[in-house]
């Protein structure tokens, strides 16, 4: 394969692999910047995948080609509501945020599979008839070379994810909402004395993470797995969490990290076809993405500072 061919096969794969991680990681960025650790991302993705698939299966005939999009919206809403549990526990009930995050993971998977068995009488759903399909982005795909690499046979969702990342950056760094949210995660009491409602901010942030996690999960399910089961979401949520930290709690950083995972992953797939790499034992290619991540962190990313108030319930009048 020529270098160009390699690029041409790597990029689209990396893009669809990363998209769900980007959405979810952005969610993580919001909730953690407000001072609420979110180990529950995995669970939020599970919920998103479950809802996305169920809705798609149920309403495919009603909505036709629009079904996947509507499914994602529904998944978004439901997961946002679901994430309220995490908000209530860790903001109002002063629960240890890690604990309640872990609970979210258990609950989502339990509910998802339980209900699947209730509604479909089996542990996994059928395949959806209206998944997301890749396409050539109009105009952009006509750009010579670049067009064929970046905009042919790609999923809109991938680019929406990237756009979301930019929007998230804008919200967090350019709007008062973003500044307040960040202040709540850095120094809640300072925010409070400035008349910002710490609890409200954190509720909103957690629900945003729920919404984005829901999108991430449903996009994964409707692009890649096409059905829901126990093993639809296995670890993608944790990879997203890693992306949040890897990206130093910065939306664009998180996006970068997610894309990094995607590229590493597709590289490891492609390389078994690349002459030089063919002879390396398979396992090295398989673990390469994870090893690379660690090396990157140790090498040039280094120390990353979590938001100061992370994992601390805010109680008025204590320092």
């Amino acid at each position, binding site marked *: 394969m020529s270098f160009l061919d390699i690029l041409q096969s790597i990029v689209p794969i990396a893009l669809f692999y990363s998209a769900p991680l980007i959405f979810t990681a952005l969610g993580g960025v919001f909730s953690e910047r407000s001072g609420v650790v979110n180990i529950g991302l995995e669970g939020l993705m599970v919920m998103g995948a479950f809802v996305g698939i169920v809705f798609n299966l149920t309403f495919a005939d009603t909505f036709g080609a629009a079904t996947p999009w509507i499914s994602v919206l529904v998944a978004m809403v439901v997961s946002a509501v679901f994430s309220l*549990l995490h908000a209530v*526990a*860790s903001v109002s*009930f*002063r*629960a*240890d945020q*890690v*604990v*309640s995050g*872990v*609970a*979210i*993971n*258990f*609950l989502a*998977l*339990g*509910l998802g*599979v*339980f209900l699947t*068995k*209730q509604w479909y009488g089996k542990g996994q759903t059928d395949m959806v008839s209206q998944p997301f399909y890749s396409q050539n982005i109009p105009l952009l795909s006509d750009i010579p070379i670049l067009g064929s690499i970046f905009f042919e046979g790609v999923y809109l969702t991938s680019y929406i994810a990237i756009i979301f990342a930019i929007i998230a950056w804008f919200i967090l760094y350019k709007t008062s909402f973003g500044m307040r949210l960040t202040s709540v995660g850095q120094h809640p009491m300072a925010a409070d004395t400035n008349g910002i409602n710490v609890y409200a901010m954190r509720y909103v942030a957690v629900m945003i993470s729920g919404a984005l996690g829901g999108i991430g999960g449903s996009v994964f399910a409707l692009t890649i797995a096409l059905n829901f089961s126990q*093993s639809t979401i*296995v*670890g993608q949520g*944790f*990879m997203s*969490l*890693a992306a949040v*930290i*890897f990206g130093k709690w910065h939306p664009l950083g998180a996006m970068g990290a997610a894309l990094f995972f995607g590229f590493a992953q597709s590289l490891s797939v492609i390389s078994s076809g690349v002459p030089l790499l063919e002879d390396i*034992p*398979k*396992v090295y290619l*398989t*673990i390469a993405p*994870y*090893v690379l*991540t*660690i090396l990157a*962190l*140790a090498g040039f*990313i*280094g*120390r*990353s500072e*979590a938001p100061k108030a992370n994992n601390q319930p805010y109680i008025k009048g204590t320092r």
Partner: protein
Amino acid sequence: MFTNRMFNILVPVISVLLGLLAGAIIMLSFGYNPISGYIALWNGAFGDWYFFGETIRQVTPYIFTGLAVAFAFRSGLFNIGAEGQVLVGWLAAVWIGTTVDAPMFIHLPLAILAAFLAGAFWGFIPGILKAKLGVHEVIVTIMLNYIALYSTNAIIRSVLTDREDTTDKISESASLSADWIMQLTAYSRMHYGILLALLVAVLIWFLIDKTTLGYEIRSVGYNQHASRYAGMNVGKNIIFAMVISGGIAGLGGAMEGLGTFGYMPAHSGFTNIGFDGIAVALLGGNTALGVVIAAFLFGTLKIGALNMPTGAGVPSELVEIVIALIIFFVASSFVIRWMLLRLKKEGK
């Protein structure tokens, strides 16, 4: 008057009850009979000696992974990597168990030690990266989980065997299982590991609460600056904590390799022993005793759940939900305390 001690006992108990209650409500609303559901659960866990044995067997690794995660937490570190540490520990134990041949009093300890060292090494990596470069342990441990999964599989397939899916059985001299236990529990796979688990729990309790090492660990966990000021070597403590934590998780793997299975299959996914360990640790409030109790609860529910479909037609996932809710209630203990106080006031 509610003393703190009473709270610390009451709150978890109430949480468990609430969790089970919620579970019952769910069963009702989906047209199952909660009574028979829970009876099936109970019988599945303690119905007869066999299932009792299996429950204990399930509890054993949970104690280890729970302790591992809890120990790291006490020093301010979040070890999501127990999963991977279990896998490498399992592999190391089986490796020694299958390849070495020596009398039991050497072979068994050797295999267990190997598991500990393997896990410890898997904990050492995030430990040193955190201590020297400030790399966040959470990512590193997540990545190491995957690396462990794939490389142990590769080793099983291409080093320990010739493209087989499971290693050979370990030799008797490295096995934790005992005939008399099997006899007693009608061939359950309960094994000596539980004793080791309880022993380690006691050791950890002692280490954390009673020794200078534990004092340092806790101090570093709370305030690294003050610990440095006080002359403690923060980096050393972080590494130490992760190494011990990883080692204990590794022992959890040994339980599977030398006790439950006696071999190691190539895993198509994570065992979840490590991930469940996080929940166990948190349920147990990161204390040794708490972890042991939480592990028993967890093991009971998990094994009992297997009997719910056959015994009462209830999908076993219901138990996952119950577990989740219990964790929530424990986490929200603040509210439960508050309610208890209210009740007390009303009482007067």
